């Protein structure tokens, strides 16, 4: 009796080909990323962004972007403009994948979720991920080895890429 049969995520996660993923696959990867980030947030700063209604998400994003000296009006666009979801999500994920320990943990969780009998939403929660990226300062992954990631540096790169893309 094994627990390995039937899992759908058998191939390695291609971080450099995220744009080839379907909306449903991308949405699942974002779920996993949000889960890993929230689990690794020892300071408890990570909000339950995926459960927030759009208005609350916009408000929280505006506040966080403003605190970092960024244009808060971008929050409404990222939340409301559906066509921005995919590219923004991919930019954020690509930046996150530059941290090997974090990328490995997300891939591990993504693989475990891949074997689930579960119909996940196909909605790409880019704004929820963006909020976490803005809010988090440090994330601890792989608790056994205690790998701590300085999220400030990572989020600066991610926000730069996102704001360049949306032209804010």
């Amino acid at each position, binding site marked *: *009796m*094994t*627990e*390995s*049969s*039937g*899992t*759908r995520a058998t191939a390695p996660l291609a971080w450099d080909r995220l744009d080839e993923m*379907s*909306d*449903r696959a991308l*949405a699942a990867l974002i*779920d*996993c990323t949000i*889960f890993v980030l929230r*689990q690794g947030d020892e300071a408890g700063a990570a909000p339950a962004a995926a459960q927030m209604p759009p208005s609350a998400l916009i408000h929280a994003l505006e506040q966080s972007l403003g605190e970092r000296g960024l244009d808060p009006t971008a929050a409404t666009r990222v939340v409301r403009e559906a066509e921005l979801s995919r590219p923004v999500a991919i930019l954020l994920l690509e930046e996150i994948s530059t941290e090997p320990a974090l990328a490995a943990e997300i891939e591990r*969780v993504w693989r*475990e*979720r*891949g*074997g*689930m*009998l*579960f*119909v*996940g*939403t*196909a*909605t790409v929660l880019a704004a929820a991920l963006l909020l976490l990226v803005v809010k988090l300062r440090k994330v601890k992954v792989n608790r056994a080895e205690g790998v701590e990631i300085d999220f400030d540096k990572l989020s600066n790169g991610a926000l730069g890429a996102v704001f360049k893309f949306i032209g804010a």
Partner: protein
Amino acid sequence: MPRARVATGMTRVPDLRVGALELVVVASDVAGVYTTANGGRERFRVGSTAEIVQRIDALRAELRDPMCISTGRTPRLREFCASWGRRFLPATLTSDAPDVLVVVPHGPTHDLPVHLVEVDAGEGEPHRPLGAVVGLSYASSRSLFIRCVSRNAARRRALSQWRCDGQPRAPAAAWVRSVMSGGADVLGDLGDAFRSTCARVAEHFDGERTVFSSGSFPYTRSAIKAATRRAPHPSALCVMAHGFIDEANHRMSGLLVERDTMGVAARAIPLHDGRYFDFRDLPLRRVPRWTGAGGDAEVFTAAELEIDGEISSELVMLLGCSAGWGRVMQGDEPASLAETWLKIGAASAVAPMWDAPIAAVQSWTDEFIDGWTRLDLPKALAVRRAMQRMRDGPFRDAPERLGVMTLRGDWL
């Protein structure tokens, strides 16, 4: 720590000891009534409703979170199993465990995994989940349980014919079972696993086998309903498909199946005197957009099953997501697809209590179906055996995988 008498599985079916545990939730308290195998009654208090409901809500939130289940991060479930879940068991049950236990939950205790509560198995023995000690079946109400028992074809078989000793039944056993088994993964990434599981299930039956998982025929609403229209109904029906819950209108919850490539099926309604009225058998709803399922999918809803289905099978196996849980409706009616199959005539149903990894569902299914068919065990004892064997394997420390599959309805 309550201690359970560990059943050896060597009892004859006529001698099986069967108990029932009913849970009752009122405004102030949650209580239980345990009917022993000898007919004795034990009433006990579980706790205050306010406290218990709060704990159950927190546990349910964890069990409904696929990320918690897939990563095995289930602290609330583990706490329930090792600690407060024991309050749902009466002292008599654990000191002298029956062979089979029928659990009748009430209100918020529907979907509570009582079978995972850890009991002391004896001197020097590690704790075991209750479901590995007794054969456990859930019944959402006493009336539904009576209906399941009264129409169970297996109960027409002489009890003395049943084997309960763990030995394979004789090849020429008089009780031959047929099966219809099919599955479809319209989301496209577990198709092979669905097909192989459906085929494996069918291989265990010595009667007529119909398998819809070959890939050459789509597994459609019509394919599922074929089991309800043929006479006699198959002894067992196995359906493997993704499901979803419609929170706003539970009867519109359903399974995602393949669209019929032959077009919309036409059905004939007899009017009178050999005249018929044809109508197009359309699904009752569109595929929810959020599922991401493509245009080749259709929804087989619980409502369609209620309107258009009737079945007298001994067992319906629902091996999909969101098949075994849902909202508790008015009149203490837990709405789930598994319940719907019981209401339209199935004697028993097995289904996951929450969304789980397919590997756990497959492992449980293999063990259960082997116990029920080859070893000729009553379903509840086949469930107990499956849990014992999974626990001896890689699922020992994974209650969210070990306990996902449950039996509902008649235990025989």
